[in-house]
């Protein structure tokens, strides 16, 4: 009971923000909340948000864990491109769906392993270590697709991007399950606490007996796996791997989702649920701008202003001022 209260208090700012953003969109575009059921799935803009938010939500899961260790993973966008390219080329080369998925997910894990080894074993700063793969990864993806958009027609693979499961688009089911799975894994075991310990003070946690090196490598591999899933979804959605554009700048959206989720970039305590709500807030803003019908020149400015407002409202300084203000009123 106490735990539930604490959890609700933790995610309250994010839920409030999401509610305000959605209400604003509903105000600008009245038909926004209309839901209908057709062809075995729900339709409507809110479903679109959950569906289109899938890549960033998946990335945010891995990114939250990485950031909780005090690191950062800039390579996730490029890893998406690599894994999408591998999935598309494997399926067109005639491998079956299970083999294709294994290869693509394996590639994501391998990318994560590479990052993890550079960070935890070689000791390169995370932002630099993952920058290497961020730059090189897109090149690797282009090598795989030979510079073209590699299209495929396999319905099984396409199902992961545009099919329906349990009345929802498949990507929604995938990211919700992955989020639930990882949350249970880190919160029902000591894993989450160990990650936080490494993020707060790696040296102290090592002295206390935490295998920080293994933990760091694992966390980057989880991030790589999440990026692989996002990459497969994006490729499956358009039935083709676009090495130039798949996942482009999404690492920044993922970091933003984590930040909007109220997690500190310095590492330590984290909330996966808050990060996921953060990802949905970002996608709500994106979709809201699209349905509102503003000229495209305004897109980025509107998005920036909304993000700025969200972050300022959440900032500790504002909270501090709020506390002072309430004291000032109470004191006389």
């Amino acid at each position, binding site marked *: 009971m106490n735990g539930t209260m604490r959890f609700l208090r933790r995610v309250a700012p994010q839920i409030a923000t999401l509610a305000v953003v959605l209400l604003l969109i509903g105000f600008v575009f009245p038909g926004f909340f209309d839901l209908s059921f057709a062809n075995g799935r729900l339709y*409507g803009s809110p479903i679109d948000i959950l569906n289109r938010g899938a890549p960033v939500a998946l990335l945010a899961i891995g990114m939250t864990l990485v950031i909780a260790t005090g690191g950062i993973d800039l390579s996730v966008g490029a890893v998406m491109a690599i894994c999408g390219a591998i999935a598309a080329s494997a399926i067109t080369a005639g491998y079956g769906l299970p083999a294709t998925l294994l290869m693509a997910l394996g590639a994501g894990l391998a990318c994560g392993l590479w990052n993890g080894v550079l960070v935890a074993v070689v000791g390169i700063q995370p932002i630099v270590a993952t920058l290497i793969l961020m730059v090189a990864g897109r090149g690797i993806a282009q090598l795989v697709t030979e510079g*073209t958009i590699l299209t495929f027609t396999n319905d099984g693979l396409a199902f992961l991007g545009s099919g329906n499961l349990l009345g929802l688009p498949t990507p929604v089911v995938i990211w919700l399950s992955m989020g639930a799975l990882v949350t249970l894994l880190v919160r029902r075991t000591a894993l989450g606490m160990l990650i936080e310990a490494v993020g707060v003070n790696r040296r102290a946690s090592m002295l206390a007996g935490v295998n920080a090196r293994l933990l760091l490598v694992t966390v980057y591999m989880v991030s790589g796996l999440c990026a692989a899933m996002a990459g497969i979804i994006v490729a499956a*959605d358009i039935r083709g791997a676009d090495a130039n554009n798949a996942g482009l700048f999404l690492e920044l959206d993922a970091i933003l989702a984590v930040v909007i989720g109220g997690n500190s970039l310095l590492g330590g305590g984290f909330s996966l649920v808050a990060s996921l709500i953060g990802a949905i807030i970002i996608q709500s803003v994106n979709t809201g701008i699209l*349905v509102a019908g503003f000229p495209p020149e305004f897109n980025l400015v509107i998005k920036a202003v909304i993000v700025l407002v969200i972050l300022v409202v959440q900032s500790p300084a504002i909270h501090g001022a709020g506390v002072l203000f309430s004291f000032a009123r109470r004191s006389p």
Partner: protein
Amino acid sequence: MFAKTLLGASILASMTFFSSAVVAQTIGFSQIGSESGWRAAETTLTRQEAEKRGIDLKFADAQQKQENQIRAIRSFIAQGVDAILLAPVVATGWDAVLKEAQESDIPVVLLDRQVDSSDDLYLTAVGSDLHHEGVVAGEWLVGEVGDKECNVVELQGTTGSSPAIKRKAGFEEGIAGHDNIKIVRSQTGDFTRAKGKEVMESFLKAENGGKNICALYAHNDDMAVGAIQAIKEAGLKPGSDILVVSIDAVPDIFQAMAAGEANATVELTPNMAGPAFDALAAFMDGGTVPPKFIQTESKLYTQKDDPMKVYEEKKGLGY
């Protein structure tokens, strides 16, 4: 037998002598890089066109860097090529190297993009007219819908890019004077499939599930391919419920046209080298000075143009 062989050999010898005497022998080509499928196709076609004419093409890939292009041009000048083709990566900073080419009497032809230098520094520029492509797309739509009411949704290219600005303005000019055709929504799809699909989904939601939309105009084929999927997933028929017209003519849109899911595309031809070589040959043989801008044809393809055949032709070009 011997006489026949001798005869054949002498004909062959005289032919090679003849051809090398008439047309340009060695031409240097400084290409930007291979940032898109279209550019890869341009490179392939340039090689093919050179081979067809018996030209020895010296190819230099600049990997998106101007300094590499300048270095390549200087090396072409040092090698004493007969002419230079240049697809400039940026518009500015070409004066010095173009002057060097001019002083060595080597004509330079610009491909696909323009430069800001004075136009007496190069022989001519071959390129497409982005504005005209939009006009062609608009006029096709006017011819297709006639007097019917038609609400158009537009997928723009990357905001602020010159193809997005010019193709938008061209299309608006193409439909000007036909009040039955209205652009009801216009958003950027960043020239990508994924964004094209996402934006189209929101258009469909915003316009009564797509029932208010009669046509889609996309600034490139890739966005149209993405949008077609969105239309299908919304339970509508692209190509009949919603007309689809786009620009570029990449192979995949021909597959969609063959399936009846896209209606028309305007070609941005990757064959810029053909007209360039023709202009060079005319200039070198007869001294005909070409105009400063040679506009390539913006050909309209529809479902009637045997899209599968065009697809097979285009597939091998490296798009």
